């Protein structure tokens, strides 16, 4: 693993160049208190003064609306046309929890049944991580096996250091990117970058306001599907899609056709949410998750159990977004703590 150093000025110049050569996706201050990952034309549009973006950047690998193909049934024939392949992209500024979010999605879309749409974007997108410089109130990544300076999964990891930035190439793709733009960097001869990153990691470790312990929670849920606890949580749940849509690991979708003239149209897949009442409604009208209780339970079981059953990975990376945004304070950290308490008394 090789490390490099760049000055602050060079970071700007490098990003301007990247924006010219690639589709560059980076954090942008959209409004007061709203940070979104968006395509940018250069460094001037980027905002690095954030910890977590309002919505996770997963949409750049798994878009909220992905056009799959165009179709036409004109003249009694079915014709399908592929959509244009996305341009090679770079996502700059991914926080460690969001990188881990992508690693959580990988086995779903890129595992035993590779999904060409996901695969295509994933392979065409270089991930540039950025170590956090402060811990937000709801962050609990360290409790979920990650950490604010743990960039595993990125191609390149950037750390703010004294007088500039340190870069570590974590994959050959990251290394190639450095080589292609080598004028912007100098090799890190004295392990300054690693040392700075470790020091930062130690400093940030003390800033977490709440840790959670998932020990035994999955095993308890394995044995206990029916719990009155879910009624309690569901009672106040609004059944909206906030938590699932801003989450870096939620990945449910629906597929539908849009053909205004009935002959030509596009088939798309769009994010869907297990919290919506219609999510499991079947063609005949039957709904196997008839009330909010089953839906809420599904979401938390997916995070804390099913994803581990299937892929041996936690389904939550501890980014804290759903904690911040839930209008009725359904707080996954509290749910984990409550379940653990119930488990201990069971």
């Amino acid at each position, binding site marked *: 693993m090789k490390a490099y150093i760049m000055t602050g000025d060079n970071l700007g110049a490098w990003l301007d160049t990247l924006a010219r050569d690639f589709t560059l996706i980076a954090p942008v201050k*959209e*409004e*007061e*208190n*709203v940070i*979104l990952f968006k395509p940018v034309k250069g460094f001037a549009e980027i905002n690095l003064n954030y910890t977590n973006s*309002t*919505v996770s950047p997963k949409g750049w690998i798994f878009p*909220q*609306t992905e056009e799959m193909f165009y179709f036409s049934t004109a003249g009694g024939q079915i014709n399908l046309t592929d959509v244009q392949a996305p341009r090679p992209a770079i996502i700059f500024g991914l926080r460690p929890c969001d990188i881990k979010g992508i690693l959580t999605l990988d086995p779903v879309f890129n595992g035993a049944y590779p999904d060409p749409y996901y695969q295509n974007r994933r392979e065409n997108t270089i991930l540039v991580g950025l170590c956090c410089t402060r811990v937000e*109130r709801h962050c609990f990544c360290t409790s979920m096996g990650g950490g604010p300076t743990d960039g595993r999964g990125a191609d390149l990891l950037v750390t703010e250091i004294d007088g500039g930035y340190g870069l570590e190439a974590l994959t050959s793709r990251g290394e190639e990117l450095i080589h292609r733009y080598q004028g912007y960097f100098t090799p890190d001869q004295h392990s300054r970058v690693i040392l700075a990153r470790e020091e930062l990691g130690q400093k940030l470790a003390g800033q977490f*306001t*709440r840790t959670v312990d998932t020990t035994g929670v999955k095993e308890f849920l394995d044995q206990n599907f029916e719990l009155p606890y879910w009624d309690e949580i569901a*009672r*106040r749940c*609004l*059944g*909206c*899609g*906030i938590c699932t*849509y*801003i989450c870096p690991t939620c990945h449910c979708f*629906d597929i*539908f056709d*849009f053909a205004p003239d009935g002959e030509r149209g596009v088939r*798309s897949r*769009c*994010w*869907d*949410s297990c919290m*919506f*009442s*219609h999510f499991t*409604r079947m063609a005949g009208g039957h709904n196997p998750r008839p009330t909010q209780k089953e839906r809420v339970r599904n979401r938390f079981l997916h995070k804390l159990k099913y994803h581990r059953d299937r892929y041996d990975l936690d389904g939550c990376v501890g980014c804290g977004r759903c*904690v911040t*945004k839930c*209008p*009725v*304070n359904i*707080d996954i*950290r*509290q749910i984990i703590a409550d379940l653990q308490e119930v488990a201990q008394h069971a």
Partner: protein
Amino acid sequence: MKIQEKLREIARKLLAGGEAGVVIGYAAGSEVSRVVPAFISREEDVDRLVWNPLCINNLVKYLLDYRHEPGKVAVVVKGCDSRAIVRLLQDNQISREQVIILGISCPGLINPDLVAARLDPEAQIKAVTTSEQDFSLQTEREIFTFTRDEALLEKCRYCEHHTPVISDFIIGEEIPPTTPLDPFTAVKALEELPVEARSAYWDKQFSRCLRCYACRNVCPACTCRECIFDQAEPCWVTKANNLSENMAFHLIRAFHVAGRCVDCGECDRVCPVNIPLSLLNRKILKDVKELFNVPTPGTSLEELPALGIFTNSDPDEFM
């Protein structure tokens, strides 16, 4: 804290006497700056109920979940929330006999972000005092004072009804209507812009809508049994997230709540990407008030929604 004690006392009586099956109120949340909607049905849980300047949620919509349950439901409402009760009553969503309204005379609430920034998340609020100038929150160890200027919640700066407009109990001293700031200042500023600029403004806002439908789900004026945005057949608005579909969603919803929106501010509060929904709904509110010379919807049971009735004096230049 007098209000909190009084509230618990009334709740306890209602549950003990079997008069109410459940009391919907607020309980302490997962951190000091948050409260959670609480559904108290046992006397021994009554002490979970809290009242403090962080009790923002409008709890009225939960009444719909009890429509088909036997027994009465008691619900805690602030002035602004109480207009939502009128909304549900006028829309025949609930019956007056089924609800017991625990009205709180509300001096205004605190912006929870400021509380989060200053207080330890694990702290517990032990006592609250509010004065004309400030809010003081007392925790186990310290007293934190916030001036109203810095901390008063935005919507409370425009408060029309501190004391609920409908109630069975009024808890706390009645606060007469004050002269609030002009709620339409922001609307007027936007109205001044040329049409292209206004259009660009809303395009930018609606573009980032996630269509999570939190604004709809929380809204006491959104009570359709099946919302058209959930209908699969016919599919009026697709799940595709793009400006055109997002715009369709917002305009349809704005018109569906036109003249019925009680200006409770909940849609604005819950939006995860800070789309200024109050601005949109207040524009319509302003138009409705000017055209029909009516008070804010939900102000009184007798005043039916302007667009829900017809009188010969209605403006009809579009016909």
